């Protein structure tokens, strides 16, 4: 049996406890706190590294990643609509969820690479920000058409001022301003405890994923197949782009993982308000109960191998 990172076992514990209806529930405030610490830690880490290595932000690379965010929902939509024969709103919702990213998965790949001593580009948190929003916009257009009545200004505000973007960019800015000399005072909470906080986060994610299992049973095979096939294909696209952009081995792994990950925070919230007729349980279940576990247990080590193979 391959050596699993201990944090993954916390996720497994959460799933088992949730499925067995064990007396285990973390209050909502704990989830909010833990995810806030993770987002800030990811941002801070990137910011400190950026301050240390003044390479700046290569705009061609960020542009390429932004385009990836706009492109990914299209095949995801086509597969759900024409192979899965889902209603248009549901297919668009799946497309938005799978085109967008999961910061939780990003945290796991960070931990995975750190354990293996593989470095990656310090600006990777910026990639998360670039990939989060475009797919959601494309998904909403796929559901509604360009002329559909969508309160765009309201929606864009919600998306760009969402928790994850504010905390990631805020953490990046603070880390960059403080630099390596300025951060020792906050190091214990944000850097040293990262894995412990991630473990708590994954325990909660396991409980939440277990809560989706009844829905999974109802929607059956298509959702399982979709939730595994799409991340695999998208990981290849992400790895290919990363390789093309000349990223490091760690960077290609991270970009492949990001492309493979599916949003379960920003996309569901945006779709719930902008496209209410889409079935929220369908996309959330696929993202949380199929794709998230697949990525953190099987996907990430596989994407690292794909990255290594591409690097030749």
């Amino acid at each position: 049996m391959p050596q699993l990172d201990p944090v993954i076992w916390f996720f497994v514990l959460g799933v088992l406890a949730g499925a067995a209806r064990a007396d285990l529930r973390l209050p909502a405030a704990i989830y909010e706190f833990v995810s806030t610490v993770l987002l800030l830690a990811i941002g801070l880490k990137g910011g400190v590294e950026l301050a240390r290595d003044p390479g700046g932000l290569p705009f061609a690379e960020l542009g390429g990643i932004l385009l990836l965010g706009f492109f990914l929902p299209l095949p995801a939509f086509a597969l759900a609509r024409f192979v899965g024969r889902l209603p248009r709103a549901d297919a668009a919702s799946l497309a938005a969820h799978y085109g967008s990213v999961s910061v939780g998965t990003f945290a796991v790949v960070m931990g995975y690479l750190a354990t293996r001593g593989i470095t990656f580009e310090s600006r990777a948190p910026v990639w998360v920000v670039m990939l989060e929003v475009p797919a959601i916009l494309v998904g909403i257009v796929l559901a509604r058409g360009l002329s559909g009545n969508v309160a765009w200004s309201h929606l864009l505000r919600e998306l760009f001022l969402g928790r994850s973007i504010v905390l990631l960019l805020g953490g990046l800015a603070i880390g960059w301003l403080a630099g390596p000399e300025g951060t020792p005072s906050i190091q214990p909470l944000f850097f040293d405890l990262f894995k412990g906080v991630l473990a708590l986060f994954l325990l909660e994610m396991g409980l939440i994923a277990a809560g989706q299992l009844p829905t999974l049973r109802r929607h059956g095979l298509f959702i399982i197949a979709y939730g595994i096939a799409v991340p695999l294909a998208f990981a290849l696209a992400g790895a290919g782009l990363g390789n093309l952009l000349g990223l490091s081995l760690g960077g290609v792994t991270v970009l492949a993982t990001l492309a493979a990950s599916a949003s379960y925070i920003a996309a569901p919230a945006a779709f719930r308000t902008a496209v209410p007729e889409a079935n929220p349980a369908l996309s959330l279940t696929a993202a949380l109960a199929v794709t998230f576990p697949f990525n953190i247990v099987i996907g990430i080590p596989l994407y690292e191998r794909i990255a290594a193979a591409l690097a030749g």
Partner: protein
Amino acid sequence: MEQFPRRLLTVVTEAVLERDLVAELESLGVRGYTITDARGKGSRGRRHSDWAQEGNIRVEIVCEPSLAERVAARLRERYYDHYAMILFMQDVSVLRPDKF
């Protein structure tokens, strides 16, 4: 002690709607409301409160009966089709009518 009749409107719905709902209530002229996190079970399945994505809220509004009717009609028209939402009304008495 003099008491004045008012209507208590209670709405139980998805937490994700909170901001839109508050804007809607204020545009209709509601001056005060109380929101609490809630969990429970209904026709759309079990709703948890331990995760904001799937949580419910309970909104309570005490106001003039005519305003309660207008709010109820608007919410029914706008949200009943696609969202988990119930609402109910009760007659209540208040001591300071100018507040409600």
